[in-house]
């Protein structure tokens, strides 16, 4: 009799744990779906941007231009005839590209604090064919905003993104995005480039920077024009 009572208790406890786990998963899934739904409201936008590229081997001045985005993953930086530089392939600078589309498993990963705000952390694993393996999202539940993402892709390593919201918070669009990405070392033969390197001090500095293989791209959005309907040919490569 006592054995039956003990087994029954275990069964009850197990059920309770399963229920709590299910409830947590459900709330995380709902949180993710709410977030995704908010992003899905933005079909396209054009924004004036300022971009700062901080990569050890790149010496690029701050770039100003127009950033065009069209869901789900089209993006283009236009600089009035100037040269534009953006991270390649799926690592682009929009939040949409960091969120898996289609079915996904959402797991509660606890809580954290981002910029003095308490946030809920969720992990999203896409179910279908996707370059994204896993996305970790720090969600401000109160405002239904992602303040940080960490996306692991199959081909492009891990990309972290910090987002700051301000003037365009109503549309869920960030004022500033900082993308942290892994970059490979860059090297060309000196016999080809024939470098001028009489400055020993600069060489020493460069050596120090060369060890840093982390890159950072800071993009400030000055204004947005949302859902005006962008034609696809804007994103076509011009020769």
């Amino acid at each position, binding site marked *: 009799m006592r054995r039956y009572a003990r087994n029954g208790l275990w069964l009850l406890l197990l059920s309770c744990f399963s229920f709590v786990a299910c409830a947590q998963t459900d709330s995380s899934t709902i949180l993710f779906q709410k977030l995704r739904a908010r992003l899905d409201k933005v079909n396209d936008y054009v924004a004036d941007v300022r971009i700062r590229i901080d990569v050890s*081997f*790149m*010496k*690029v*001045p701050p770039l100003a231009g127009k950033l065009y985005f069209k869901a789900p993953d089209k993006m283009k930086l236009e*600089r009035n*005839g*100037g*040269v*534009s*530089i*953006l*991270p*390649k392939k799926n690592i682009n600078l929009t939040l949409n590209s960091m969120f898996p589309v289609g079915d996904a498993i959402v797991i509660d990963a606890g809580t954290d604090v981002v910029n003095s705000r308490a946030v809920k952390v969720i992990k999203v694993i896409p179910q279908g064919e996707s370059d994204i393996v896993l996305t970790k999202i720090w969600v401000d539940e109160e405002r239904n905003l992602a303040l940080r993402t960490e996306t692991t892709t199959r081909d492009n390593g891990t990309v972290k993104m910090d987002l700051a919201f301000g003037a365009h918070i109503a549309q869920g669009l960030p004022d500033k995005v900082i993308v942290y990405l892994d*970059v*490979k070392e*860059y*090297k*060309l*033969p*000196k*016999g*080809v*480039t*024939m*470098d*001028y390197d*009489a*400055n020993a*001090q*600069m060489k020493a500095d*460069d050596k120090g920077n*060369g060890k840093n293989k982390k890159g950072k791209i800071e993009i400030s959005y000055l204004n947005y024009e949302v859902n005006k309907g962008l034609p696809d040919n804007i994103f076509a*490569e*011009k*020769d």
Partner: protein
Amino acid sequence: MLRLELHKIFRRPRTYISFLIMTAVTFLIQLAMYVDGSSFVSFAMQGVGEQFAISGNILNGYLVTYLVLQSLLIHIPLLVALVAGDVLAGEANAGTMRLLLTKPVSRGGVVLVKYIASVAYAMLLLVWLAVVGLGLSVLIFGTGDLINLKSDAFVMLLEHDIMWRYMLAFAFAALAMSTVAALAVFLSVFADNSIGPIIGTMGVIVVLTIFSNLEIPLFNTIKPYLFTTHMIAWKGFFDAPVPYDAIITSVLVLVGYIALFLAATIVIFKRKDIQS
């Protein structure tokens, strides 16, 4: 006397051969870039292109000019030597040196005037390079941001921030060519035939350029003292930030070499027994 020396230089057909060679090489580079520049850009950018999508008018006049300068500033010293190596040796060869020295000018003055005439010729070569290299390239390919690929860095300069760099680069190239002219005049004082100084100058520049560019620790100690190491300091103007300290050092080294070559030439020329 300077006018006379300039007249001597510019009445020779060989003087204009240099301008023709430079024009031909520049045209060839521009033609190659016009026809197949996109392949060149893709090849050059592949290290960065794997990680970043770079688009826009990369193949513009400023990039083509940089490539022209890069290839021609190795060859221009040879063209400068063609004339500067002849200024003293040519007189000896023609048997006009004694006649020249009957003029009321000191021997040191003769050397300086001949050097200044050689430098004037080198300046004209560079002006011509600016016209066909920079002017024509901008006309054909347009303007845009300049991408400068170094061995360990990708440097991008904005369009409005480039022209002053080219002006300073050409000014620096003038100093570098003046050093070559001083070397050629120096070697010219030893010979009674212009072939020796011309080939001698070319030989010195080729050998020292190899020393300057070889990445072998043994040569690293002598590299900072070779004028060929400092002749490419014009590239510093296309870096960000511009390494002004290093460029000033290079300027001082080149000025030092010019002074050394000219002083040695004057001393030797003053003691020389002129027989022709």
